[in-house]
């Protein structure tokens, strides 16, 4: 199951050139671009790990792409996303984020039904990938 989140989630995966255009847009707005990665695909997992530091004061997308390629070399089998942080007064928060890398094989989620008191049912989504320990979820060593 192809996981979608953030901007452009209804589009097919962006090419490097498209990514670099989007990054350039963010830099043009004065936002700091961050690279984050994870192998826990649950939609409520908001704690992705950061690759390096947020990149402030960049002028050109080539710098971000350079880091992204480094990150892909190490964590190419995980989800990687770019997020843009706006530090200006009044915003001070994330303005945009989109996925730039995904595992080749995404096993998807199963739905678990918990039967609780009074014939009620609670639902849980569980990722098949997350059954394995971190780092080994997508065919990594």
């Amino acid at each position: 199951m192809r996981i979608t989140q953030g901007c452009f989630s209804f589009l097919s995966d962006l090419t490097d050139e498209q990514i670099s255009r989007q990054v350039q847009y963010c830099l043009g707005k004065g936002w700091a671009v961050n690279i984050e990665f994870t192998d826990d695909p649950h939609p409520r997992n908001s704690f992705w790990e950061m690759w390096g530091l947020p990149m402030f004061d960049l002028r050109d997308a080539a710098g971000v792409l350079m880091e992204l390629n480094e990150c892909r070399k190490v964590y190419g089998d995980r989800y990687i996303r770019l997020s843009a942080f706006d530090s200006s007064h009044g915003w001070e928060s994330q303005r945009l984020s989109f996925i730039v890398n995904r595992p080749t094989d995404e096993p998807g989620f199963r739905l678990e039904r918990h039967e609780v008191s009074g014939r009620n049912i609670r639902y849980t989504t569980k990722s098949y990938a997350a059954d394995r320990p971190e780092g080994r979820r997508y065919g990594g060593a």
Partner: protein
Amino acid sequence: MLAAVERAAESPPADAIDLRREFNEVGIGEVLDQLDRELIGLRPVKTRIREIAALLLVERVRKRMGLTSEVPTLHMSFTGNPGTGKTTVALRIASILHKLGFVRRGQVVSVTRDELVGQYIGHTAPKTKEILKKAMGGVLFIDEAYYLHRPDNERDYGQEAIEILLQVMESQREDLVVILAGYGERMDKFFASNPGFRSRIAHHIDFPDYADDELFAIAETMLHERNYRFTPEARAAFVRYIALRKTQPLFSNARSIRNALDRIRLRQANRLIADLDRVLSADDIMAIETPDVLASRVFGNDTGAAGA
């Protein structure tokens, strides 16, 4: 650059190009004229920059015609004594490259060893990469580049910075132009011990020392910018000052002149303040007189109020 590449890809290769229109379109003529106008002397440097600009313009046209696709190597090295205008020229080069579309943004990131090399193991690579990322799409100007290499210390972290630089200079030629600057002799030694650098740099530009009359012209320009002027006698005294100062140690061309002018302004202000009852005209405040110049230690009178 992206835009240029795309245009080339979208439209079929042009078979006739009006060179003059191309020249006017990119507007480098103006930058080059400005370079001629505002920078005094430096004849060989200006000639070299004109040559590079011409080459790049032709390269641009060739790309439009579909005759070439590779990115020319643009890394440069500026060698010359202190105060010969290396940094100033680097800024102009960036704007020329930007106008021609060989760098995308045209910013200049000026760094020295401190900003590239870390203080402990594992500190250097992120530091160097951070600077490289900031310089992407523009020009990275490394002043006194020979400090990166410390021959007396094998474990110096400078070597790590050099390796990262070399790698990026080679693999991301279309994203970044690196300009190394430093004093001639030491740069030669630096290149001798890092042959990788020498071969990756296409343009070695040597900045000559200024002649006496050029230094004087520089002084006049600096004064004019600040709304000062020499009286005729002070002018003669300053010409003598330049000749004397050049023979003394630690002479650093235009920078020495700027410092001398700063001290002269100091003495002039002191002279004006000494006589509080006088009513001053604008002329008096602008004029730099002979005593202001002659009080310098360069003339051999150690009684001078404010040092050399």
